[in-house]
């Protein structure tokens, strides 16, 4: 039974990254998935710098990566792989990310109740014992349930149907 679920997760998970506009915008890459666990990576990109002098990635970029990896771990932890929304997220920034290096985020949903998943995650540059940041988050299954997932086709259509940007100077689509 777990094998079926795992196979489904491996089919589904890349879509969660590819089919999430903001994940694509930041350049997140799907790495691996297991029941209650997920790993993503983020190659260094100069667009995502938080301080022009130090060239260090913006803390908010790590927030987004940890949120995405944790959300994916949460999704995979529910019996029926339910879509989720972040309730809260705490991040500790242990050190500055090294300019030029790829960040890896590993998330683990260590406890899941009927509707809530509790997830820990760590972001590092290859050595998990030398973390850049770590996080603790909780996620809730979304009330509208299954249809909010969408099939890959439905997601592609939904992305196409998104309203255009409000400001031509704003972030690119």
């Amino acid at each position: 039974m777990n094998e079926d679920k795992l196979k489904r997760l491996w089919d589904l998970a890349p879509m969660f990254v590819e089919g999430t506009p903001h994940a694509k915008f930041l350049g997140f890459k799907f790495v691996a998935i297991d029941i209650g666990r997920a790993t993503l990576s983020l190659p260094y990109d100069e667009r995502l710098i938080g301080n022009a002098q130090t060239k260090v990635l913006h803390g908010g970029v790590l927030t987004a990566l940890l949120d995405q990896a944790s959300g994916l771990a949460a999704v995979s932890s529910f019996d029926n792989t339910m879509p989720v929304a972040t309730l809260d997220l705490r991040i500790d920034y242990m050190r500055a990310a090294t300019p030029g290096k790829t960040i890896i985020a590993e998330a683990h949903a260590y406890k899941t109740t009927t509707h809530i998943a509790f997830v820990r995650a760590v972001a590092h540059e290859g050595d998990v014992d030398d973390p850049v940041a770590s996080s603790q988050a909780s996620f809730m299954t979304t009330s509208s349930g299954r249809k909010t997932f969408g099939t890959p086709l439905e997601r592609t259509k939904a992305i196409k149907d998104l309203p255009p940007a409000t400001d031509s100077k704003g972030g690119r689509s």
Partner: protein
Amino acid sequence: MSDQTSRDDKVKRALANIPYAAELGIQPILMGQELTLVLPYSPGIIGNPMLKALHGGAVGAFLETCAIVQLGIAGEGEELALPKPIGINIDYLRRGRPQDTYARAVIGRSGSRVANVRVKAWQDSLQTPISILHGNFLIAKATSKK
């Protein structure tokens, strides 16, 4: 330089020092000395296309940018120093809809090394925030720029 134009200039310099803020299209609004930041909606900040919901990470990055800019411009005079985050907590209260989001930061305490900040993000009204951040930031040494 008047207080207003010098504050305005400082906000612009702080944002110009944060490439990712420009990438998100974040704009400042100054009313007197009160700073509000705007995160313009764009399809690239969507987290769930089926729900047309903003990504928690995009909102989080916006809140954090607001805290950093508010602290960065807090000092008297011309110098600019962008603080680094130590630990932040974000509560997601409402789904972010595909429209512009605003944020304003309040400094709880600013010591010599660490500052505590709260930031609220809203879309329709300050009374119905979509997300709230509180966190501690390491005060950077001022780099004076004339």
